[in-house]
């Protein structure tokens, strides 16, 4: 399965990447994608995840073609 990954805000800057594609095996969850992409980074405190532009928890299952986003707490308004 191929997914698209996006990073926003300070997380994008810390990682030095705005996004990337990732091939994951069936049954992968969000937290698995994080570790595959950032093997030397622990799961960040307070990180938020969106799957296809809806908030989800880190244990959510991934599907082919998903858009997965990671970002820090929001500060709009």
């Amino acid at each position, binding site marked *: 399965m191929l997914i698209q990954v996006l990073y*926003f805000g300070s997380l994008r800057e810390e990682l030095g990447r705005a996004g990337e594609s990732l091939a994951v095996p069936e049954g992968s969850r969000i937290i698995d994608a994080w570790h595959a992409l950032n093997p030397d980074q622990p799961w960040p405190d307070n990180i938020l995840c*969106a799957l296809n532009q809806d908030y989800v928890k880190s244990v959510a299952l991934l599907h082919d073609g998903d858009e997965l986003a990671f*970002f820090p*707490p929001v500060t*709009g308004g």
Partner: protein
Amino acid sequence: MIELKPSGFEPYPALLAHQASISQAGVAFGATCSFVGTLRDFNEGVTVSDMYLEHYPGMTEKFLARIADEARQHWNLVDLLLIHRVGAISPGEAIVLIAVWSVHRGDAFDACRYLIEQLKSRAPFWKRETLPGGSHRWVSANTDGYRGGSGQSGMDSAEGILA
């Protein structure tokens, strides 16, 4: 109506323009509650420079449409308007406008408060503050919108720049 604005806007003229469109078929509303968030130029004695508002294209619009739908379902509203800036913003400029029209005041107030609280806590926007030397830092978190007193929680210094 929900709008993301990549350049400056004047909140009250925008409110009035939208209200004119509501009023064309008669004055159906008796109450209007509005909230405007403005970038301050001073934070605890330090001059604030520009701010950059990053967002998540697609999800931001989707999220704002959802909370607007929730507000319309939960309260008796005539109409609502939500405008939020994205991109570079200068002190004194409006960051967000929320205006809610209803027949009775309780609905307008409660829906307006709901929208700004949802937006502040969940809408995918991130503020990056330009410091006087030209470097920048990310605002770390929004808060409950109070400073001190009344048993409200405090907030960190970076957030203190904005309401």
